[in-house]
């Protein structure tokens, strides 16, 4: 997948992983990697970007004697998921057209 597009899709996947409950870096990687290839090092800039744009907020919680950073989805993040899903129908039509023309 083209990197720019993958970046955008990854953002949505991360947001989706946070929909049910707040989560932390390691778990997010584990959760979305079966669906899309992601490494710890690609996740960091995505989380920071989502945080900077207000799509997620963070808080720390103690775990095994250290602090673990949790990410929580915020309304702008949920809005982003809705937008993405809303585009799906349009994308399907585009795919269909390209497929038809490529036959």
């Amino acid at each position: 997948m083209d990197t720019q597009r993958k970046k955008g899709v990854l953002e949505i996947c991360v947001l989706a992983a946070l929909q049910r409950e707040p989560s932390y870096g390691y778990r997010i990687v584990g959760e979305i990697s079966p669906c899309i290839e992601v490494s710890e090092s690609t996740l960091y800039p995505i989380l920071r970007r989502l945080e900077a744009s207000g799509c997620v907020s963070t808080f720390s919680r103690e775990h095994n004697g250290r602090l673990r950073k949790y990410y929580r989805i915020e309304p702008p993040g949920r809005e982003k998921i809705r937008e993405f899903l809303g585009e799906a129908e349009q994308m399907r039509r585009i795919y269909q057209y390209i497929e038809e023309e490529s036959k």
Partner: protein
Amino acid sequence: MKREEFLRQLAAALVSLSDAERACVIDYYREMICDGVENGKDEEELIAGFGNPREIAAQILKESREGFQEHEVPAESPQAGSAGAARAAPEESVYPARGAVHTVVVAAQNTAVELRPVQGGPVTVRFTPGTNDHVEVYEQGGVFSFRQTMTFSVFHWRDLFSRPRRICVDIPASFAGEIRASTGNARLRAAGLGSLRAMTLSSSNGHLSAEGFRCENLRARTSNGALELRGMRGGACTAQTSNGRATAEGCVFRDALSLRSSNGAVCAQDVESDHIEFTTSNGSVSAVIRGDMREYAVRSRTSNASNTLPPELAYPGQKKSLDVRTSNGRIDVRFAPAQA
């Protein structure tokens, strides 16, 4: 590569980032390593999977130029409710002990430590971690341990104007166990605590003080700072400084009181103990001891200055002792009647 080496290389490659942003990256990777290892992964394999620290840093620097920093709220105009505002004014973190605790261990680096009394509640550490602080807390078998280290130490002129960094430890009045606290290059202070079984205070270059509580076995040690004990009670006390002044005022230690310095003065006012020892090499010793001199087997020595005590004066059957030594200072030790 092991984790500390990886984090060090990564931090070094990120020097052009702001302190806060760099700490954020380091915390992220440290957490990933901890979580991975806890889930049974091999530390070195995991780290190899992250990629080369320089490449990771290059990617983060590029992304940070492109965008994720531009939304950050500048510190001068904090905006309510945004993620950036939380970083502009870092919040105090609270680390309470979960279970019953008999020993508290606090180890700090370049950060002042203050042990202070609270009415009730658990032993609690309060600290606002800075940009490159790393905090480890664990609790096991009644031992509560808080360790603060710094990934790397960067001096910034801004630090001169900010409030000194401090770790506060709340000790509930009912706590009667042991406390071990240490720091480097910063002040260490314990005041108004209840009654402790044992306490060890050590600082490498900082001022050290204990005030107004009871401790059965007190040990205090600093290298280049002053050492002060005020209104302390208990069994035995050993206080030592290398190049600072050692002071005790209004202290009663039933069994033993030892004040030592190498190059500083030793000064004791209104102290009481069965076995008293004042030692320094290049400073003077001045003291007022509450008690009757006739009960004490006295030994004193100075090479090059005046001395108010006899060099050696002991009778059979004396149960108390006073031992005063200095090489190049004056000795001025007097007795005053014990307080009623």
